[in-house]
């Protein structure tokens, strides 16, 4: 026996003797003498590569596992999207795994819907219940009455879900995400003839002009762009990239800008076109780029006649001089880059406004050049899933859906104005796969709990990567804590239970097998190399990262593309009764609300307001003073759709005619940390009436605000007065 071991044992014996009064000494000694299974070394941590599926960005992660328990999530340095970096949300998914209120096994509803009364059942029982319902549909020859609703899945999971629905004989796989970039794909198709998502080369740009694109918070790939932003600022020896932000509310992204242009909501497109016109009339455009895109400067200028500077200044509420200055800087500081984001797209005239911003990139010659914008290597996705959603709601309303399988929490993330909640209530059998009792699960008849992300297999295809093929691989890093099963496994098991054509559609034994097959197709292992070796390698590095590869077809303004023509913005609610614009924005911590059950994220002070554990409404101090509202007062926000009570935050970075509420809180369920906390602002949203069909114009609702009382119960991490006293520490 080595001296060290002896001392260790001696120490343990002593400690054991000391503690033997309260518990058996053996209990404490054994793990040190008999080494546990699975090659676990006490005190030595292992790292497992995986991928994050919390938001669509799809970053690579490394999970530190110690003695069979996941301890910490870090970014995977090998992953080209996040390069070892990770946002707050990605690190917090550890708490999804160990959440104290997870659904530990399948549940069957016993009380009325929404009462939260469930009985635990076994998986066998749960699966046969589901299969029974499905085979009933088969017997009735009404297989189209099955609907599967998921978030916008990609990769094998999307394929599997599609296959399940198709094999069953239903056309209804609804893939709706409130924040999905459908609008960007659609605009790209209209302007450039290809629906791929763009990849912005922020790191190399010298002048970044963001129209409501909050790329540091949630837009497309926040960690990827956050990394690029750091390099744009200080990554080059002599150049510091300049950043101007256009938007009525100073978002976290806008807070990092050198210049903030608080534009009137809905006039962003007009601003972009006004700048375009100025660039054209002052001949500051990039002639080569214009020629390559087949645009004639004179003709284009003539098309933009309406957007002369005084007119644009009036529409946007910005000084003429500022608009002209930014337009000139943008055109004369190559490479420059204009981005359009959700805050523009979710206006009533959003689709055209986004294209107006794209036109700026054409004018300044920013297409397909370093520091500009490239087509991303990402796969195509839905371009108008909102229309699918509305059609689906219509079907449910007409009692034409018999079984709805729901993965995700649409009841929380779909604005009630779509009629979704009432329509879902009419569906006779609703199945939820949520790992927590979220709003949707509370309304479900059967809950078949999914694994936590860290217990799952999967492939994660990031929507934004420079070029080439990037597929992140998820692998279970711990043995499952509860009696849960992964969503794709449940679909496959159900198919097997149904038998016949359904079972035949899934020849693989498990989802893992399917995943491996898909990866095998991607890597084409050279002759002689065993795929298992390749597979283990892929798992070890966290996925397949082929970043050199092809560049893809570059962007080019298509000949058919019309000149962007954003209409005059329309809003739900008249400006007399509802004098303020409402902006709903994804919370930095919770994204669309999926982060709300995680206490680390609840405790994380919102970067802009430093509020913790709550919802709030941001009001310009001048407006608040006019309404007699003080910091932290409880106020009522009323829209044509309804009203909410929540505390007010006096926010100097917002237009006086605007208020803003973050998304993410207001869950009816979702465990002890989220339940009943804050409000869900989506309840306020109304759809602006637009003759051409419904648009997801989430930022086109007007509201009014009234003070209720002093008891807002608002908690901020920072002292509200001290937050204005930066001069005391010379900041």
């Amino acid at each position: 026996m080595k001296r060290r071991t002896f001392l260790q044992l001696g120490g343990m014996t002593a400690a054991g003797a000391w503690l033997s009064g309260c518990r058996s000494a053996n209990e404490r000694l054994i793990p040190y003498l008999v080494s546990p299974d699975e090659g676990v070394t006490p005190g030595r941590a292992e790292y497992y590569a995986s991928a994050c599926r919390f938001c669509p960005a799809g970053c690579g992660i490394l999970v530190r596992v110690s003695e069979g328990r996941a301890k910490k999530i870090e970014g995977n340095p090998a992953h080209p999207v996040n390069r070892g970096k990770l946002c707050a949300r990605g690190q917090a998914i550890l708490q999804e795994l160990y959440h104290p209120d997870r659904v530990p096994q399948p549940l069957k509803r016993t009380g009325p819907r929404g009462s939260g009364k469930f009985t635990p059942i076994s998986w066998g029982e749960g699966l046969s219940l589901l299969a029974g319902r499905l085979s009933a549909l088969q017997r009735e020859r009404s297989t189209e009455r099955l609907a599967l609703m998921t978030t916008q899945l990609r990769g094998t999971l999307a394929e599997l879900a599609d296959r399940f629905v198709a094999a069953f004989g239903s056309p209804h796989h609804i893939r709706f995400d409130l924040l999905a970039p459908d609008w960007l794909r659609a605009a790209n198709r209209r302007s450039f003839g290809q629906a791929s998502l763009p990849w912005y080369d922020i790191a190399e740009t010298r002048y970044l002009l963001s129209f409501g694109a909050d790329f540091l918070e949630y837009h497309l790939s926040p960690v990827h762009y956050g990394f690029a932003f750091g390099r744009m600022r200080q990554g080059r020896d002599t150049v510091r990239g300049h950043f101007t932000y256009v938007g009525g509310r100073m978002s976290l992204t806008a807070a990092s800008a050198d210049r903030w242009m608080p534009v009137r909501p809905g006039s962003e497109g007009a601003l972009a076109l006004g700048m375009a016109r100025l660039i054209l009339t002052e001949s500051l455009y990039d002639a080569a780029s214009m020629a390559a895109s087949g645009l004639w400067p004179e003709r284009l200028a003539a098309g933009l006649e309406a957007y002369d500077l005084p007119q644009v200044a009036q529409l946007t509420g910005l000084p003429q001089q500022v608009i002209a200055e930014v337009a000139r800087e943008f055109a004369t500081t190559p490479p420059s880059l204009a981005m359009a984001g959700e805050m523009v797209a979710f206006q009533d005239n959003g689709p055209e406004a986004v294209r107006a911003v794209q036109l700026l990139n054409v004018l300044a010659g920013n297409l397909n050049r370093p520091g500009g914008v490239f087509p991303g290597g990402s796969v195509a996705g839905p371009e108008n899933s909102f229309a699918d959603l509305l059609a689906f709601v219509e079907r449910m309303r007409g009692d034409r859906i018999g079984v709805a399988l729901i993965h995700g929490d649409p009841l929380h993330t779909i604005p009630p104005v779509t009629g979704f909640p009432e329509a879902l209530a009419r569906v006779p059998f609703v199945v939820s796969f949520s790992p927590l009792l979220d709003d949707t699960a509370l309304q479900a008849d059967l809950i078949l709990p999914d694994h936590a992300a860290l217990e799952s297999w999967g492939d994660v295809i990031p929507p934004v990567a420079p070029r080439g093929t990037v597929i992140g691989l998820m692998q279970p890093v711990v043995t499952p804590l509860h009696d849960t099963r992964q969503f794709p496994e449940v679909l496959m098991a159900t198919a097997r239970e149904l038998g016949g054509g359904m079972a035949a559609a899934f020849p693989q034994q498990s989802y893992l097998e399917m995943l491996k097959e898909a990866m095998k197709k991607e890597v084409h292992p050279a002759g002689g190399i065993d795929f298992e070796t390749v597979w283990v390698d892929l798992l070890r590095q966290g996925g397949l990262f082929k970043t050199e590869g092809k560049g893809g077809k570059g962007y080019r303004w298509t000949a058919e593309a019309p000149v962007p023509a954003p209409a005059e913005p329309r809003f739900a609610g008249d400006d007399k009764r509802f004098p303020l614009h409402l902006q709903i924005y994804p919370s930095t911590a919770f994204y669309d609300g999926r982060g709300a059950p995680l206490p680390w994220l609840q405790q994380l002070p919102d970067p802009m307001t430093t509020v913790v554990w709550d919802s709030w409404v941001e009001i310009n101090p001048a407006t608040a003073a006019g309404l007699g509202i003080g910091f932290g007062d409880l106020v009522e926000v009323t829209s044509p759709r309804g009203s909410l009570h929540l505390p007010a935050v006096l926010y100097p970075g917002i237009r006086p005619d605007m208020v803003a509420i973050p998304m993410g809180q207001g869950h009816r369920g979702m465990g002890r940390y989220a339940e009943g906390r804050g409000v869900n602002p989506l309840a306020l949203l109304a759809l602006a009436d637009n003759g051409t069909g419904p648009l997801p114009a989430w930022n086109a609702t007007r509201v009014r605000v009234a003070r209720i009382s002093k008891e807002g119960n608002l908690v901020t991490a920072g002292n509200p007065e001290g937050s204005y006293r930066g001069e005391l520490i010379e900041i």
Partner: protein
Amino acid sequence: MSEPTLSAAKSAVRMNDAMLSSLRPPTLRWYLLAFFLGGVVAWGLYAFGYMVSTDMSCTGLDRPVMWGVYIVNFVFWIGLSHSGTMVSAILRLSRANWRRPILRAAEAMTVFTVTIGGLFPLIHLGRNWVFFYLIPYPNQRGLWPNFRSALLWDATAIFTYIIGSSLFLYLGMLPDLAVARDRCAGWRRTLYGALAMGWRGTAREWLIFQKASTLMAALIIPVAVSVHSIVAWDFAVTVVPGWHSTIFPPYFVIGAILSGVAAVITLMAIIRKAFHLEEFLTPLHFDNMGKLLLVIALLWSYAYFVEVQTTWYAHEPIEWEVFSFMAGRYTPALVLMLVGNSLLPLTLLCFRRIRRSVGAMLVISLLVNVAMFIERYLIIVPSLSHKNMPFVWGTYSPSWVELSVTAGAFAGFALMYTFFAKCFPMVALTDVRELEARKVLVPFARAELPSIAGKEGGDD
């Protein structure tokens, strides 16, 4: 104007009777008082126990205000303890004979207040149960406390002061204990006999007693000054705006003496009434103490002015922020402090009639101590509330636990005093009698008037 002086015909026995009256068996009222005080102490102990057994979240403390009412109490009680030193030692050395009837009360107060004050740093610890880490005891791992910490200086100074003032009290009481021994029977006789250590009152004993008393008086003064300087250093040596000030040590000492003297006046008024010692504690004594209070209130006002004036003139942003915050949020308290510590004593104590009115003096002295408590609060809490980093500014208000412990401390002090008064001679018997003995009739024109300005020392 005739002074109510002691009658020349008064016999030693009568004097002994009067001055040892407090030792008579307790009355029902005494028991009621003791029970009431005991109840409050028990409540305070319960609150403390609750805090220790749960956690410190039941206090009002937070970040950045990590010190609150406990430390206010600490400074306040240590301040009060300057009564005994001031009245007893300084007046002994300066041979002010009017001190004699009150010095016992003052010395006892010193011992009790410093004991209670010394408890507060232990009460306020996050982990009271490992308080012994603060004590330099030899241990195998060679871990010693950090003598660079002002808290350890505190501990050292306070222990010295407790020991010193206890000795001082005990030494002064020695002949009285012998008198009490001779007049008592039963357990009291045994107790006083043991404590009197065989005092017989021989000339040699008196000589040694005289020397020792004078020596102790001379020694205790620097200790007292150092104690409160060190308490002030707890604050002054930090980098907290509003604390980091060179005026703090003398300012704290002056404040301590102010509250000490005021507390002695309060006690004099109470003892005089409770034990019917009107004969010994005359308005003359109140007059003299009033003069002393007036002088010290003047000094305090000067120190406060200096502190504010330098801060205002320098206008260092964060320091001035602390002052403006304090003046804004705590305006009523600030006004009360200035009135109680400065305005009222400075105006009223100029009038002899007020100085000689026991009731007025009681009110003024109580007000001074209320104001001193506020002063400690306004030094400690606002400075921490608005420290250097504006983002983490905070506020503080004491919780029921802290207030209960504070109430318990006040009741505990009163209870100790009540017990002490019942067990030991409250008036320095031999000192007073010595004065009587020295009293000579001084020819004044055609009359012979008693003088209390007899000379001390062994040379006459």
